[in-house]
């Protein structure tokens, strides 16, 4: 197992390099940060000074190599729009994103697994149809629209929750629910399929024939075994979660990495974009690795290539 983890970790830099390269080239080719940063009234001296500071007078490959050289020292560069290094800018936002993503994911897993169990137990019956339908409806609601509808209903009409912002526990409810809606249906579906698959297995059939109740078979035989596919799916979904946080954070004025990233793309603040993208890629890789390790711990039969 240790070998597998090491191999996976060795692969991470390659991913990051590729991601960094694509991001760098696209951003540099489609906008000059000097134009965006300085006032339209700027003087030629200012343009020259800033161009030199950002190495924009060098050819693009050289710029990328300079970026890589600094990166090896852990330095993404100074943010243009912010004061301070890109790393410090991004790290200030990481907490908010993790909090939102964590709450959203937890909500999606809990409700999704519960829903999946109900769907599987009453397979192809009304409850299954209703829950599956609701789940798909939720998933197909673009989150910027769902977000505003939730604000309108829970904050403006019922006055139960604040409209937006970052603060106490009540602030996280609506954004987390919005984010959870993106993932929830998949968890319902995966749980449902996993349980149904297990129901045909020999040990489950045996358990039933020994006279165990349906509920008991479900809790002792089926659910522990259904955890694995759900877990592996969870790993895949981390990327979706990160993508969903971009729009959710904008609607709810949530001070996370997603909104920072979008803003920085629009400002061509390359250091901050790169640092945010690294954070996201690393978060996805680490989450997947954790899921894999967890799976192997739960079920030692699983071997990784």
């Amino acid at each position, binding site marked *: 197992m240790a070998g597998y983890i090491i191999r996976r970790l060795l*692969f991470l830099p*390659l*991913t990051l390099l*590729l*991601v960094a390269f*694509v*991001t760098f080239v*696209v*951003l540099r*080719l*489609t906008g000059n940060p000097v134009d965006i940063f300085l006032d339209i009234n700027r003087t030629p001296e200012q343009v020259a000074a800033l161009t030199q500071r950002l190495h924009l007078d060098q050819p693009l490959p050289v710029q990328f190599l300079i970026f890589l050289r600094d990166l090896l020292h852990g330095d993404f560069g100074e943010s243009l729009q912010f004061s301070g290094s890109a790393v410090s800018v991004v790290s200030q936002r990481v907490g908010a994103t993790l909090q939102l993503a964590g709450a959203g994911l937890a909500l999606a897993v809990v409700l999704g697994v519960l829903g999946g169990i109900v769907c599987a*137990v*009453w*397979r*192809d*019956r*009304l409850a*299954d*149809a209703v829950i599956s*339908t609701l789940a*798909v*409806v939720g*998933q*197909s*609601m*673009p*989150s*910027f*629209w769902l977000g*505003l*509808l939730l604000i*309108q209903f829970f904050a403006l009409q019922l006055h139960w929750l604040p409209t937006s912002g970052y603060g106490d526990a009540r602030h996280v409810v609506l954004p987390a629910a919005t984010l959870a809606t993106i993932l929830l249906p*998949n968890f319902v*579906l*995966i749980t449902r*399929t*996993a349980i*149904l*698959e297990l*129901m045909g297995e020999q040990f489950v059939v045996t358990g039933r024939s020994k006279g165990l109740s349906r509920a008991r078979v479900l809790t002792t035989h089926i659910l522990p075994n259904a955890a694995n*596919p759900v877990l592996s*799916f969870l790993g*895949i979904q981390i*990327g*979706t979660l*990160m*993508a969903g946080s*971009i*729009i959710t954070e904008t609607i709810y004025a949530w001070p996370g990495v997603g909104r920072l*990233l*979008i803003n920085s*793309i*629009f400002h061509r603040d390359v250091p901050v974009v790169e640092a945010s*993208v690294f954070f*996201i*890629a690393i978060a*996805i*890789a680490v989450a997947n690795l954790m899921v894999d390790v967890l799976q192997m711990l739960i079920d030692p039969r699983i071997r990784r290539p």
Partner: protein
Amino acid sequence: MRRGRFGPTFKISLGGCIVLLAVLTAVLAPLIAPWDPYQQDLMARLKPGFWSAHAAPDHILGTDNYGRDLLSRLIYGSRLSILVGVSSMLFSALIGSVAGVIAGLRGGATEQVIMRFADAQMAFPDILLAILLTAALGGSALNLIIVLGVSRWMIYARVVFGLTRSLRQRPFVEAATLYGGGDFYIMWQHILPQVMPVLTVVATLQVAQMILQETALSFLGLGMPPPAATWGNILAEGNTRLFAAPWIANLAGLAIIVLVWGINMLGNGLREQYDPNTVGR
């Protein structure tokens, strides 16, 4: 545990009906739309539809912020939404399948390069790539199709790669290779027919994802440029006025929900029919 009435057959027929209806709407748009979807009437902007006492009499579903007929825009919007959804799916399926087959047949360094590249892209939220590229290229139907296609090819690559690798050992593929069949010949003659059923299911579900992705890009101001109507940009435009003219966003949203729901229903039904034990995504 007995099976009920809402099984695969039910899902395929209901989902199929919805999809068919949407496609018919798109094809017949010029015949059924009551108005020119681009005709503005600023004096009649943001008028509600039949449910309201202040309704504009000729506009059943009301008007948008330029006084254009919302029903006509939704009808015409189905064209670009479905076109972008299906074409970008086809484009990513094409890249993904070719990459997957080549990686599966060649193996070795080729496989490593292609599949590691796919892995790397998996660790990068697809919407981000789409944002970067549309910001750069600008939004047009063609650009959107390319961008959305490129951001999702690896899903097909992985599926096709897995299947190809298992098929490579089979006698008929080995024989074809021995007799000097080229990669594309083998792919066309032997691999494609085998992977088609699985691909169809994945692809069906991906159309829904593409439509939602286009909507998200519209929200960020990176979708189809005006005055083109897609459900995504009608929704995004209506969303900014949700508190004032809720019907625009809500009706466009409803259209998206129904279509995506229909596509998912169809896809999941097909999956259950084709292989009840597949744990897919």
